C-alpha cells in the first residue's frame, strides 16, 4: 500500500525551484565534474606513458575544455556567493540580487574564455 | 475484538481545549487524544487577536472588570458564577501558558503585551482597556503550537486522523467512543472511563464563515443522539469583519489598533450605534450596525459590504478625534510600518485573497459566521449536565467551543474563547482524570462498533439522486439568508422547512468512493448529516425564543425580554424531533440592565 517515497532524479530536476535551485544543481555538477576530472588529470600526469597521453588528449580537446571551464568558473563564482551568505546569514535576504549578480559576472567571463578556447581550437 | 483500545480518559479533539485537557488528564490517568485532524491543524490555530486576562500590564485592569464586561457582553445570559470563575483564573492561566514557552509579544518592560479588544472596558471610564494578551495576530496559532509541543514533551498518546463517529453510553454513563481510522477505514473502539468532548464549533452551517471545513459540530451531534441536550444553540456569533465573500476573519485587533468601519458615504458609522466605544463595541452590536447600514443602502456602492480602514492617516485622524492616547498620555499615532508589524497575517490575507493592500487601501468586509455560544451544557469542571436540574452525566465531559458552560451567554466577547478553552480544558482534564481514578470501566455493549458501521453504510444505500456538495450548499445558503445576523419568524420557518427537506434528501445520497483508505467522500456525507442536525436544533431553538438578545436578533421582537426569556434553552433530540426545555441563568452580582456601549 502506498507509492514509494523515492524521488527519482528526473522528478527532482523537474521541480520548479527557480534560480537558486538551478545554481544548486549546477554547483553540484561543477564540483562533481572538477573532482572527477582533476583526479583523473593528476593520475594521468603521474602515469604519463600511453594511458596518460590518451587522457591528456581528451583534456586538450576544446569541447572538454569548454565543459571543465564551465565547471570551474561556475563553481568558483557560485561557491563564493555561498561562502559569503553562509558566513553572514543575514545577507540571504538578498538572495535574488546575489544570483543576478553572479550571472552577470559569470556570463561575460565565461564568454571571453570560451571565445579564446574556441579561437585557439580553430586557429590550431 | 480487534482494534479495541482501553484508556482511563479519552479526549476527542486536539484543539486548544482538547490539548489542554489531554495535558492535564495524562498527568494522573492513562489518556489518549483522538483527533480527525493532525493536532496542529485544529482551528484554534486560526485565532488571531488574543486571549483576554486582566493582567494590568499596561494600564489598570482587574478581574472584576473583566467579569462585568463578560456578563454585559453576554447580554446577561451568561452564568455569572462561571464567568467569575473564568475571569479570576485568567491571569494565572495566561502566566501558565507563558511558562510553557508561549511567545507573547512584549511591552518595553518585558511583560506580556496587551491590546484593546471589543467590549473590554475600563469600568470606571467606560473606555476600551488593553486586556487582550497577544502574539502578533497569531495568538491562537501560538497557543495551539505551544500546547501540542507540551503534549509531545509529556508523551501524551495521540490518535491522529481518527474520526470519532459514535459515542457509547451504557446505563447513562459514558463508556467510550468508536472512531474511523481515516488511513485504513477501519473502525476502532475506545473503551474509557471518562470521555471529554472538545470537538470545536460548527460554523460550516453557514455560507459565509470564518470556520474551517472540519468544523462540523460532530461532538454536539453525537451527544444529541445519545440524549444529551444542546444548550443555547440559537446564539451564534456573526463576526462583523469577515473578508467580503470569503468570510476569512479579519481580527477585531485591527479595530483595536485604531481601524474604523466606513460606509458607502465615506462616513464612520459606529459612533451612531455605540457612543462611547464606537468601533470597539461588542460583536453582535457591530454586526447589526453594519447590517442596518447596508439595509439602508449605505453599503459600498450599494453592495452588501462596508470598508474596514486601517490606513495610518485614517487611524490617526480618528484617534485624534477620539482623543485616544498612549499609556504615557501622548496622543496615539501609528505609521503604516507599525500596522504591518502588528498585523502581518491580516495584511497577508488581504493581499493574497483580495489583491488589496490594507496599508494603502480599505478592506471590504461583511459579517461572517464565527462562533457557537451554544453547545453541550457543562459546569465549570467540564462535567456535562443532563437537564435543567444540572444533573451530572457520569464520565462525560466537554470543553471548548463545543461546550456551553455558559460563560458567553448570548454573545461572546473577543478573546474570551481562547481563555475559555484553556481554563475549562484544564479543569475538564483534571476532573476527568480524578473521576476515572475513582471509577470502573462500564461494560461495553456487544458489537459496540455496529451502530457506527450502520450509520456510515447508509450512505452507500441511497439511489444517488443527491450530492453532498449540493445539499451542503443549499443548507449554507438558506441558513445565511434566514438564520443570519437578523432573524424573523417567516424566515426561520422557511429555513426550518428547508432543513427538514434536506434531511429527507440526504437519504438519497450514494457515496461513489467504495474504498476504505481516506474515503473522505463518505466522511463528508456523515459530517453533513451532523450539520443538518445542528441546523435544525439551532432553528427550532431560535424560533421559540421570542426576543432579541446578543447573537439572536429578531426583527419581529427587537427588544430583550428578561421577564420571559432570561433563561437558557436546552434542546433534546427525541424520536427524530427537537424538544425544548429551559434552565435558569445564574445571576450573582450583576442584575440585568440595558446594554449600551
Amino acid at each position, binding site marked *: 500500500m502506498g507509492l514509494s517515497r523515492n524521488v527519482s532524479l528526473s522528478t527532482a530536476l523537474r521541480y520548479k525551484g527557480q534560480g537558486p535551485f538551478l545554481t544548486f544543481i549546477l554547483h553540484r555538477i561543477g564540483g562533481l565534474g572538477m*573532482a572527477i576530472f582533476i*583526479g583523473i588529470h593528476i593520475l594521468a600526469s603521474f602515469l604519463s606513458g600511453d594511458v596518460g597521453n590518451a587522457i591528456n588528449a581528451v583534456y586538450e580537446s576544446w569541447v572538454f575544455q569548454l565543459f571543465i571551464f564551465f565547471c570551474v568558473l561556475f563553481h568558483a563564482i557560485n561557491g563564493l556567493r555561498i561562502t559569503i551568505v553562509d558566513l553572514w546569514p543575514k545577507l540571504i535576504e538578498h538572495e535574488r540580487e546575489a544570483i543576478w549578480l553572479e550571472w552577470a559576472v559569470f556570463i561575460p567571463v565565461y564568454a571571453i574564455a570560451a571565445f579564446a578556447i574556441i579561437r585557439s581550437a580553430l586557429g590550431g | 475484538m480487534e482494534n479495541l483500545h482501553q484508556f482511563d480518559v479519552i479526549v476527542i479533539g486536539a484543539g486548544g481545549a482538547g490539548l489542554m485537557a489531554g495535558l492535564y488528564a495524562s498527568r494522573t490517568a492513562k489518556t489518549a487524544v483522538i483527533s480527525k485532524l493532525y493536532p496542529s491543524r485544529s482551528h484554534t490555530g486560526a485565532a488571531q487577536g488574543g486571549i483576554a486576562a486582566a493582567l494590568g500590564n499596561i494600564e489598570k485592569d482587574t478581574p472584576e472588570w473583566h467579569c462585568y464586561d463578560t456578563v454585559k457582553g453576554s447580554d446577561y445570559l451568561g452564568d455569572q458564577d462561571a464567568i467569575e470563575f473564568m475571569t479570576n483564573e485568567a491571569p494565572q492561566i495566561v502566566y501558565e501558558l507563558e511558562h510553557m514557552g508561549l511567545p507573547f509579544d512584549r511591552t518595553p518592560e518585558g511583560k506580556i503585551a496587551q491590546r484593546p479588544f471589543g467590549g473590554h472596558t475600563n469600568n470606571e471610564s467606560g473606555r476600551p482597556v488593553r486586556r487582550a494578551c497577544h502574539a502578533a495576530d497569531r495568538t491562537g496559532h501560538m497557543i495551539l503550537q505551544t500546547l501540542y509541543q507540551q503534549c509531545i514533551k509529556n508523551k501524551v498518546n495521540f490518535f491522529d486522523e481518527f474520526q470519532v463517529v459514535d459515542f457509547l453510553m451504557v446505563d447513562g454513563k459514558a463508556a467510550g467512543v468508536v472512531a474511523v481510522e481515516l488511513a485504513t477505514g477501519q473502525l476502532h473502539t475506545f473503551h474509557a472511563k471518562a470521555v471529554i468532548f472538545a470537538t470545536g464549533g460548527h460554523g460550516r452551517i453557514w455560507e459565509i464563515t470564518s470556520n474551517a471545513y472540519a468544523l462540523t459540530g460532530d461532538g454536539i451531534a453525537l451527544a444529541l443522539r445519545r440524549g444529551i441536550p444542546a444548550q443555547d444553540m440559537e446564539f451564534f456569533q456573526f463576526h462583523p469583519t469577515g473578508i467580503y465573500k470569503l468570510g476569512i476573519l479579519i481580527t477585531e485587533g485591527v479595530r483595536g489598533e485604531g481601524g474604523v468601519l466606513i460606509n458607502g458615504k465615506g462616513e464612520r458609522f459606529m459612533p451612531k450605534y455605540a457612543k462611547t466605544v464606537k468601533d470597539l463595541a461588542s460583536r453582535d452590536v457591530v454586526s447589526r450596525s453594519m447590517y442596518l447600514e447596508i439595509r439602508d443602502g449605505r453599503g459600498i456602492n450599494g453592495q452588501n459590504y462596508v470598508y474596514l480602514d486601517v490606513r495610518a492617516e485614517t487611524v490617526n485622524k480618528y484617534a485624534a478625534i477620539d482623543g485616544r492616547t498612549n499609556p504615557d498620555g501622548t496622543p496615539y499615532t501609528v505609521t503604516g510600518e507599525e500596522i504591518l508589524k502588528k498585523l502581518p497575517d491580516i495584511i497577508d490575507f488581504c493581499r493574497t485573497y483580495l489583491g488589496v493592500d490594507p496599508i494603502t487601501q480599505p478592506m471590504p468586509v461583511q459579517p461572517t459566521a464565527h462562533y457557537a455560544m451554544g453547545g453541550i451544557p457543562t459546569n465549570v469542571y467540564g462535567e456535562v449536565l443532563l437537564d435543567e436540574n444540572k444533573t451530572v452525566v457520569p464520565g462525560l465531559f466537554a470543553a471548548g467551543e463545543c461546550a456551553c458552560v455558559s460563560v458567553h451567554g448570548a454573545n461572546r466577547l473577543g478573546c474570551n474563547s481562547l481563555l475559555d478553552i484553556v481554563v475549562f480544558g484544564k479543569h475538564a482534564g483534571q476532573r476527568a482524570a480524578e473521576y476515572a481514578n475513582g471509577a470502573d470501566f462500564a461494560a461495553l455493549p456487544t458489537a459496540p462498533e455496529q451502530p457506527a458501521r450502520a450509520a456510515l453504510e447508509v450512505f452507500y444505500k441511497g439511489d444517488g439522486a443527491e450530492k453532498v456538495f449540493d445539499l451542503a450548499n443549499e443548507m449554507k445558503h438558506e441558513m445565511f439568508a434566514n438564520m443570519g445576523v437578523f432573524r424573523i419568524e417567516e424566515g426561520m420557518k422557511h429555513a426550518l422547512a428547508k432543513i427538514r427537506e434536506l434531511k429527507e434528501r440526504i437519504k438519497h445520497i450514494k457515496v461513489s468512493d467504495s474504498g476504505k483508505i481516506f474515503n473522505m467522500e463518505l466522511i463528508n456525507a456523515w459530517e453533513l448529516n451532523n450539520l443538518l442536525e445542528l441546523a435544525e436544533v439551532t432553528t427550532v431553538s431560535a424560533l421559540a425564543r421570542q426576543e432579541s438578545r446578543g447573537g439572536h436578533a429578531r426583527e419581529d421582537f427587537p427588544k430583550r425580554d428578561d421577564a420571559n426569556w432570561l433563561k437558557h434553552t436546552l434542546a433534546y433530540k427525541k424520536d427524530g424531533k427537537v424538544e425544548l426545555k429551559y434552565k435558569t441563568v445564574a445571576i450573582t452580582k450583576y442584575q440585568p440592565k440595558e446594554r449600551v456601549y
Partner: protein
Amino acid sequence: MATKSRTLPLSKRGLNFEMLMWIFTRLSALAMYALILFGVIGALIMGARNQMSFADILRWGFMPNSTHVQSTNVPDLAPWSSFLWNLTATLLLLVGTAHGVHGLVVIADDYVTSPRGRLVLRFLSIVTMISISIIGAYVLWAL
C-alpha cells in the same frame, strides 16, 4: 530579563565532523580564492599579459604548475617553476583535494544513508584524499 550567557561552550555546540567539514569547506573556498588570486597576480607580474591567453592565465591560477604554461608563448619557464610556485601549487592541491573529496562525500551522503555505509565511505574518502595528495605532490615536485 535573561542574563545568562548566550554563548555555547565548544563541547556543547554540536561542532562535530559534519559541521567541522562544513566550515572547512567555506574556509577552504576562501583559501583557494586567495591562492588563485595570488597565482594570477604573480602571472601578470611575470609578464603573462602579453604571452598568455586569458584561459591560460586562469588555468595557471587554478594550478600554478609549470606544465600549465608549456604550451603558451612564455619564453622562459624558469621563473614559473620556482619554489614559490611549487609551494603555492601544493597548497592549492592539498586544500582543493580535501575540499573536493569531502564534496564527494557530501554528495554520496545523500544516497548512502546507513550508518555503516557512511562509515565505510568516510574511510574510503580519507584514503582517496591522502593518496591523491601524495600523488599530486609527487607530480608537482618530482616530475
